[in-house]
């Protein structure tokens, strides 16, 4: 526990025990870390997921975050980082001076040649800001460039999927740390009492794409208490595990069963006085409420035809990216703190043009729709939207190389992400790469810088946001000293 936190706990505890009677306030108990998993309602605020005392550290510019993770390493060269000069380098070796002898993946380190593959796609300047974008396969995202900040200079340490994903989501390549969403749920709680604070979707991806594995740790609580785990709402089956009553049990039956359960639990509470018993009583009621609130969440029939059209035809199919994106908006509308979508299949070592087109077909329209939909509802100002993967791809081709067909290996040195909404600058491009999109030449942004900036938007000073683990004050942003990237902020 953070010592400051412990101090505040002491205050709270004293205050709390000044009260008369056995009124076991959830905030007090949870804050003391004594009820361990208690998430019962705070008697003063009525919150089921209260924030930590003292948080946010300052006025946030975003109340909620929706993070669209494009898993596998989307090619920055074929989406955002336009390099017109590359057409003269088709099938010519990447100059050694550019490559600089740094670490290659062992999938291409044995290659004898490193022939450049210019993107086959058409790029245009769009919006008032004139941001370059691939309009062949991102026609919808091209419409929102005035609302986003594009970062071309994100870089990571890891060159393989598993450590890179673990790094981008938990700030460490080694498994065991807490994920971004868990940190936020832990620190800020949630305004919705009937839904989890941190919700995750793992939508479908193209059948013939190279789908890398996802890991629960990407939305896991790591060393934080497990109640801060992201809850994966599922595309097929029940959206929340074990949500529906078993066949043969109607709502009234469940209520009767719960009434008896709670009456007996009240007696246990009287008998032993254990605050955990009170928490358990509250949690069974919360479970009962979730059995209604979650189906209500997924009932998208009440959306207007115009809204559904905005997200595209897939929106009515549960489990698609579009459907998940719409649910993400409905979640933040309901006060949920963090929503993450993990879309797989962006790992194009070969047949890149064909496969990345399929990837975009599933995600482009709904990603743009999400931003536009939030904007027209006035929610974009308080919702931070993030789009990006775990690393980029190399300018040189792997395998077959023709003008229209090529593959690209992993490239950690620079890749693109975009941010929009709550506190983020509009119509801006940050960072620049060399003519080969191989090295950053201006304004590098590390993963830890990015995460520090995201926390900043949420009202958190990353350097003061820690949790004691294995003798360290563990932080999402690691032990180095990353900085909030002020240029990205509105």
């Amino acid at each position: 526990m953070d010592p400051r936190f412990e101090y505040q706990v002491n205050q709270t505890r004293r205050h709390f025990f000044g009260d008369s009677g056995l009124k076991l306030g959830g905030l007090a108990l949870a804050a003391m870390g004594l009820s361990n998993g208690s998430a019962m309602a705070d008697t003063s605020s009525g919150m089921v997921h209260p924030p930590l005392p003292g948080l946010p550290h300052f006025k946030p510019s975003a109340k909620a975050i929706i993070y669209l993770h494009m898993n596998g390493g989307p090619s920055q060269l074929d989406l955002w980082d336009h390099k017109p000069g590359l057409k003269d380098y088709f099938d010519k070796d990447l100059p050694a001076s550019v490559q600089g002898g740094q670490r290659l993946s062992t999938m291409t380190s044995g290659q004898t040649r490193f022939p450049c593959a210019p993107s086959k796609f058409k790029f245009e300047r769009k919006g008032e800001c004139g941001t370059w974008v691939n309009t062949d396969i991102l026609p919808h995202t091209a419409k929102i460039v005035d609302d986003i900040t594009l970062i071309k200079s994100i870089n990571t340490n890891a060159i393989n999927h598993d450590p890179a994903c673990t790094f981008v989501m938990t700030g460490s390549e080694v498994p065991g740390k807490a994920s971004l969403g868990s940190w936020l749920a832990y620190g800020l709680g949630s305004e919705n009492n009937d839904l989890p604070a941190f919700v995750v979707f793992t939508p479908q991806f193209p059948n013939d794409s190279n789908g890398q594995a996802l890991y629960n740790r990407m939305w896991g609580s790591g060393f934080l208490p497990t109640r801060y785990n992201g809850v994966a709402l599922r595309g097929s089956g029940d959206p929340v595990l074990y949500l529906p009553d078993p066949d043969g049990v109607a709502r009234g039956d469940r209520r009767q069963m719960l009434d008896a359960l709670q009456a007996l639990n009240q007696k246990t509470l009287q008998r032993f006085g254990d605050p955990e018993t009170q928490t358990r009583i509250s949690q069974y009621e919360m479970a009962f409420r979730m059995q209604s609130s979650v189906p209500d969440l997924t009932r998208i029939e009440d959306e207007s035809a115009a809204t559904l059209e905005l997200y595209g035809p897939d929106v009515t199919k549960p489990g698609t990216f579009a459907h998940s994106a719409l649910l993400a908006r409905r979640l933040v509308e309901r006060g949920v703190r963090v929503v993450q979508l993990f879309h797989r299949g962006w790992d194009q070592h070969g047949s890149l043009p064909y496969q990345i087109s399929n990837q975009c077909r599933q995600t482009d329209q709904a990603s743009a729709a999400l931003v536009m939909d939030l904007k027209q509802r006035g929610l974009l100002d308080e919702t931070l939207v993030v789009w990006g993967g775990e690393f980029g791809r190399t300018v040189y081709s792997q395998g077959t190389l023709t003008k229209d067909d090529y593959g690209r290996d992993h490239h950690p040195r620079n890749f693109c992400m975009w941010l929009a909404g709550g506190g983020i600058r509009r119509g801006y491009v940050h960072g620049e790469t060399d003519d080969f999109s191989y090295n950053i030449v201006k304004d590098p942004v590390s993963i830890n810088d990015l995460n520090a900036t995201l926390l900043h938007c949420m009202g958190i000073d990353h350097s003061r946001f820690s949790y004691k683990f294995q003798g360290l004050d563990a932080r999402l942003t690691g032990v180095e000293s990353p900085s909030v990237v002020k240029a990205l902020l509105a």
Partner: protein
Amino acid sequence: MFQFSRIPALALWAIIGIQISCCLSATAAETKPIDFNRDIRPILSDKCFACHGFDKGHRQADLRLDVAEGAFDNSRSTIAITPGDISKSEVWSRITTTDPDSVMPPPDSHKELTVAERELIKRWIEEGAPYAKHWSFEPPQAVAVPNTSHPVHNEIDAFLGQKLEERNLKSAPAAAKEVLIRRLSFALTGLPPSTADVKAFLEDNSDQAYSKLVEKYLDSPQFGEEMARHWLDVARYADTHGMHLDNERQTWAYRDWVIRAFNQNLPFDQFTISQLAGDLLPEPTEDQLIATGFNRCNVTTSEGGSINDELLYRYAVDRTSTTISAWMGLTGGCAVCHDHKFDPISQREFYQMYAFFNSAADPGFDGNALLTQPVLKLNMPEIRTQQQAIDEKLAAVQTQIDEKAATVAYQDPAAAEPKSETMMVENVWMEDDFPATGRVFASPGAATQYVESLEGGAVFSGKRAVKRTDAGLAQDVWDQAKEPLVLPQGASLFAYVWLDPANPPKAIMLQYHRSGWQHRAVWGDYEAIQWGAANTTERVGMGPLPEVGKWVRLEFPVEKVGLNPGDGLTGFALTQFGGTVYWDKVGVAGAVNPATDPQRSFQAWWQQIAGKDVAGIPDSLKELAKGGPKPDVDTALLQRYYVQAICESTKANFTDLRAQAETLKQERQRLEDSIPSTFVFRDMPSPRESFVMIRGAYDKKGDPVQPEVFAFLPPLQKADPNARATRLDLAKWLVAPNHPLTARVTVNRFWQQFFGVGLVKSSYDFGSQGELPSHPELLDWLAVRFQTSGWDVKQLVRLIVHSAAFQRDSHVDQELLANDFENRFYARGPRFRLDAEQIRDNALKVSGLLIDKMGGKGVKPYQPANIWEPVGFAGSNTRFYSQDKGESLYRRSIYTFLKRTAPPPFMSNFDGPNREQFCTRRERSNTPLQALQLMNDVQHVEAARVFAQRILKDGGADDSSKIRFAFQEVLSRQPAEDELQIVQSQLNAHRQRYQGDKDAATKLVAHGESSRDESLDVAELAAFTLVSSMMLNLDETLTRN
């Protein structure tokens, strides 16, 4: 003048000001002399050591405050601490100044000293600033047992009583016997007590009643299961590799060994040595080798593109950190990149420890294999016995074959006069078996199946035929032939096939392998099987499917599929799309000269195999066979083998006997394959050189290091003082009598297991950032006692559960909550939620579903759809969860298959770790998702229904006695009158509802794979199912009280 680190800062005095106004209440420390370790070190460690501690890389102003020599150094122009004189102590002026540029800690560290903390530091300096070595780095002392007025069952209570008196806390009376037996049973076996045990215990009024119960539980096999699951969290045991594909690994023998070790009460020092260095013991036993699996439980990967050196480095770091944490309770991970900031572990020392583990023989890439070397094949005596019986039968059959071979006349056509002429022959490659000289394999999911008869009649020839049924593309393949099958002149390939009229395939295909599988003939739907370029010899359409329901000979010239006489085939495959297909008698027809045909001439055959190792030839003849034809040697036995096994003109005489032998051999092999292996730890033949890795980067080697232990701990005693230190030296050092940490850390973990929180709450950190022990003398006393008892785990457990503190009533009132919220002073008994495994096992046990079979491969009980699949890698063998059937659904949870990247929800939902890293302490959360699981998971709904069946059958005649029965079975007690009423009205409501809706009732009682008791009224069963479910969801049920 020296400089504290000086960083421009914001004024945070406002915040400190607030703290002054609500300063902490009086603590015991104000009235007692200052104790450095208790009162001062925690402050310095948290607020000062990061810049003024052990880590020289980050040390500011070249000042150390962690040792007296640094703080008192009077060679400096300004002295940090002058004992006894705060006016000459720069520390004091710097922590009290209002100047934001010089105040300590600097504001941007976000650390502040409270008023109370500053007061303590002042008093400490005034008292002479005595330093002491960190408490846990001094060996535990045999402390005298104090006197106390509190009830004392054993020495534990005497130590606890002293603190209770100091705090003026009253200890609670003993818990009711019904409560106590549950507490003890869950603590020692992880299961609720049986009703019979409860009855016996309540009726036994002797002084030994409790002790008898303790002994019974200590002796039960479930004791080992309950103890083991705590250790398996530390050992990060799981059933998959953990990264990337996250494929299955087979190392469950380690899990079973841990259970066995606790049940056999293996002394903890041996438990330690076996796991860390069992392989280095003289003539290690199988168990000692299995135990080394501890150091193979770390996550591994085989992700393409990874770098071998980096993986090896990470594994060694993981093993080092885990060992440091598991036995010494220290956080070694910090020293991977730099000197430890708080504890005296230098980065160099970390890598010296790492050098013990850095010579591991296992590879960086796990190969995504079930068994990544080094592995140990287990001794399975019962299987060896079965194999011996088979060997005897096999020898008898072989004798019959040999005797018969002696009677079969054979003359080598090569030696015949006149010379033989070319003739048309059939060489049969597959009759009852595929040729022994290659490999047989089949489509994933179903091994090659042989049948001796068909639905519609007999096999075509010989004893048996190959059968396959599949909905899609499937095949039986023979390949990797050591001896090519040579195509004769004018050859045509043939095979006999029988298609099931009830389930015909869409297409069948014959495939042949020369240098590749590019020779295919297909009958039926040409597009059904998309292999090979269409309309080339890679895929030749032979027309419609043959007639169903009869044996049909398929035959075509070899040229048709791009082959030529003289080609040697090294494989063929029998392929189908859908349907049921039988194959028999596969071969080639063509023209040969018997005198030169290896299938007819012994000499030709011998010539052909000369210099080669050919499968199937008896060992005693191998050398002779390989040597090739020689004059003047006795060829009788080799020729006898040829006659029975190879020769086309004679081998038909032996079909029956050879089939018998083959069946026996296959059975023997099946038994062999069923013997599991397990991961073991071993070093490479010569040690890998170890280096300090700069900033923890795998490719930045600094100074070379040798295996060595931390300098602040007792020196290592090497078995051979002149040799490199070994892991065995290390393991023995950990359990040496003068080691200050191992015994303390271990008894603390057991204490945590029984009381919910350790005497040192941070059971993972005994360093200066960890919490101080609540009862340091008790911890030392227990540690010394544990060591001197010979590290006797059962005795330690016996001692703890016999204490009055363990047996107290857990009732807590407001005043006690205020004084001791977490029960760190043990005025009341421990009360906390059951662990994940216990919750599930309890439901199974109470319902009567629990199968108490121990050990073996991890089982896959009920799990909702889409737990593995959404995260699964496309090529992973743990992508799809395939739920087991029957008793595997009801085994104890410790045997559940644990996939690291998607652990079973019943575990993760209740704070079970994913076993990616060691875990010495689980959280205990209390969430709505848990409530949903316990109410709605099929495992629990089924358990409720099966328990309801018991209530209806065994619970007596009327509702009241049935409800009493339910209370007794679930809670080990009788209900109070108002409790009875609450349940009765619940039951009434459900009964009325389900009598009016039998459909709903029928649905409710249908959950789960166990069949419902049809003799019971469905509405009644449904009503009691919900009552049972309610009972199984009670706070009292889910809590170890």
